[in-house]
């Protein structure tokens, strides 16, 4: 029990540290939301009267003159109550509303893509590791090359081939905007259709990592004594591969997978930019461009909590699966 209590305590301290950094880092950036907003309006057709500045300062409440430490304490208090404040770039929408609107898109897209990539990578890794030295080994350099190609480049190439030239997939967007949003088949199928290419690029660029890791673990487990024993007992090759070797080899990958699930919520800013996807990554970019501290803090908070939660889960699971990790002296 003490093991779990200590873990939880550690995560609470980490959460507090992350919250504090979330508060201070955006404020170290140059610029402030009012000037950013004004500069934007000026470039958009101009005619911004000098009076506008005062008016927007009052409206956005950025000119409170409150000392930083007081802002910090009220920020911590608000976070505990679940109040993330008002977004300046989408004023007067609440940060929770902005995040709530975009988070599902990212979680579903990146979540499914990560899951697919993991499953595919581990399966292929199992087979190539088991049949090492065969022709299948050529998969490894092939997929690692794809993983090494800069992601945005790969994404743009795919857009060029499949959307612009072949026109198999839509150029941009998360769904066909002519359809009614909701749980109807037309909408869901259009969301799937629009999500395919972005998901594909994520899978292609990340499958190599899983494959390589799994394959190497398979090679290592393949030389274990219990595998030899299994062979000696005359078990079927396939059974040895899946039930004996892969089951042990997948452990490190599984831990990695849980952690990468935590990063799913942070999305993939570049994917969302390239495909104009309505997810959290594009919101983060919008927040940074507009000095929207509240929205930045909100998004960082969600990411932090998700990563910490995933880590905690892995920690606890490991303690459960592998008793060696929770031995205390």
């Amino acid at each position: 029990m003490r093991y779990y209590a200590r873990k939880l305590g550690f995560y609470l301290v980490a959460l507090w540290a992350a919250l504090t950094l979330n508060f201070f880092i955006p404020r170290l950036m140059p610029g402030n939301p009012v000037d950013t907003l004004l500069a934007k309006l000026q470039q958009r057709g101009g005619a911004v009267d000098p009076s506008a500045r005062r008016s927007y300062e009052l409206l956005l409440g950025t000119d409170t003159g409150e000392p930083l430490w007081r802002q910090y304490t009220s920020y911590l208090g608000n976070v505990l109550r679940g109040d993330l404040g008002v977004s300046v770039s989408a004023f007067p929408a609440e940060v929770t509303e902005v995040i709530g609107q975009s988070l599902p898109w990212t979680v579903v897209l990146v979540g499914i893509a990560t899951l697919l990539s993991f499953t595919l990578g581990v399966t292929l890794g199992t087979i190539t590791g088991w049949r090492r030295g065969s022709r299948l080994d050529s998969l490894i350099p092939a997929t690692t090359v794809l993983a090494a190609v800069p992601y945005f480049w790969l994404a743009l190439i795919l857009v060029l081939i499949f959307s612009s030239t072949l026109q198999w997939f839509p150029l941009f967007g998360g769904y066909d905007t002519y359809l009614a949003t909701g749980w109807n088949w037309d909408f869901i199928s259009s969301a799937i259709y629009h999500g395919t290419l972005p998901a594909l690029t994520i899978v292609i660029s990340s499958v190599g990592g899983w494959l390589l890791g799994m394959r190497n673990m398979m090679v290592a487990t393949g030389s274990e004594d219990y595998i030899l024993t299994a062979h000696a007992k005359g078990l079927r090759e396939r059974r040895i591969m899946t039930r004996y070797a892969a089951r042990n080899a997948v452990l490190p990958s599984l831990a990695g997978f849980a952690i990468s699930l935590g990063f799913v919520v942070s999305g993939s800013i570049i994917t969302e930019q390239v495909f104009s996807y309505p997810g959290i990554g594009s919101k983060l970019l919008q927040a940074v461009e507009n000095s929207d501290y509240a929205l930045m803090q909100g998004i960082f908070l969600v990411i932090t909590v998700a990563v910490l939660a995933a880590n905690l889960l892995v920690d606890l699971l490991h303690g459960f699966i592998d008793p060696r990790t929770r031995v205390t002296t």
Partner: protein
Amino acid sequence: MTQHARWRRTRRAMAGAAAVALLAAGCGSGGGNGGGTSGPADTLVAYTGQAGDYQRNFNPYAPTMIEGPGNIFEPLFFYNVVRDDAPVPRLGTDYSWNETGTELSITTRENVTWSDGEPFTAHDVAFTFDMVRAHPTMNAIGFDGESEVVDDTHLVVRFAQPAYLEAPTVLGKLWIVPEHIWSTFEDPAQNTVQDPVGTGPFVLGDFKPQAFTLAANPDYWDGEPALKNIRFVSLSGNQAGADALAAGRIDFQTGPVPDLHNVEKNYPGYRAITTHVFQIALFTCSDTALGCTGPQTDPAVRRAIYHALDRTQLNALAYQDTAAEISPGFALPGRDDAVISEQLTDRVAPMEADPARAEQVLQEAGWSKGGDGVYAKDGEKLSLSVRVVSGWTDVITAADTMTQQLKAAGIELTVAQSSWNEWSDARGRGDFELVFDSLYPGPSPDPYYSYNYFFHGDNTAPVGEVANPNFARYDHPEVNAALDALQQLDPADTAARQPHFDTIQTRLEADMPYIPVLTGGTTSQYNAEKFTGWPTAEDLYAFPAVWQRPDNSQIYLNLKPAGGE
């Protein structure tokens, strides 16, 4: 300026990304278009530069609103900033000033109804004016008039001072809202007006975070518009806009596309129009009394730079030849021809470089050339840094070209790139020697407004405090006095105004706090095959930029589906 403003998103993306995407756009344009893909024949698909989801906000007074002014909520009059036209009546039919310019009498339109069926009267106008005045958070134009309703179609607005020059903002930029609905709002500034009720030619159709539609208002006072639907879509930026244009998915967008010279060839059915209103200049931190330091505080240095620039080369290398001539007095050539002073040495800035002249100006001011070919005075080298935003490729190209041009005149220029936030912060606080930016126009085709914004001492601040928007820290008593005098005069009295305009322009030419570069072009592309009635260079009835409100509503009112469909 708009040109580079619109490039922003692309530039922020990695350079490689831009290169590939240009390729993608280029290839995409070959793959046929047809115009049929952008929806039904009476639906216009507009891309305003919206990136990411739309947050539902139709409050015309909120800086973050997504649509409303002009299309849903109308002003009393429409002022065309690109041509010296008389105001076009919208909800107002007539207005007049008393002799001293303190009392504005407005006649409002009869037989207008709100889109919920209630009648519109002068009471709604007075309510709107009072509401703006009572809420500093909505009063972005500094309105302080007192309104009094005479009858259902007449009202009077009284000002403490002569307020002739407030007419374009009061009549053209205050969007009239229905009293019977807005009087129930607790805080109208914070209300997002989810279901807007206005008098405008369009009403809100369906709304989704990635796109929304405005539908023609069947009961519009001037008859239902021929354009039945406007669909506003959201894309991730310029590049996605150019791609969508190539694929024929959008009908109207503002922003540069690759190979601007050949839009008609590359995008069959589409045309491009370039309008010149944003005056590109090198803003200098000019006044030592306000805390500026550096060689650019010497007016001779600023004039030398002015002469050393080869504007033809800049236009070709950085702006795809979309920019136009600029006047050193900052009146717009073309629109303000009548105002451009006869007393200016150069009516428009010379397009060719004259390094010999530049060196002469420097020598007369006591600068002498050092062994390294760069001028110096009292041990101070004539070396300047210009702040530009990293990723704004056209501005960076322009600044790099200038570096070469100024070198020939013995002036050293270094280009300092920084992020946009940092750049705009430095510009506001005066933390720069030169900054590459542009002057924007006012609410009406009158150069007074940009003069007042950028040259009046009231709108500047010492270095370290935020200037708004007289970033050059220019504070000259003669110019201030001339601007104050203009405020007292009826704009119709051109003879009385001209001496003041002469003073301002000649002072600007002599002092050059803003070194004129070129007048930047704003380029829009539109689907001319699907719709007729677009503004053209010959008939510039509104500023043709998709994001310019309420100009875009004038355009939408004027559009007709082609082919009588």
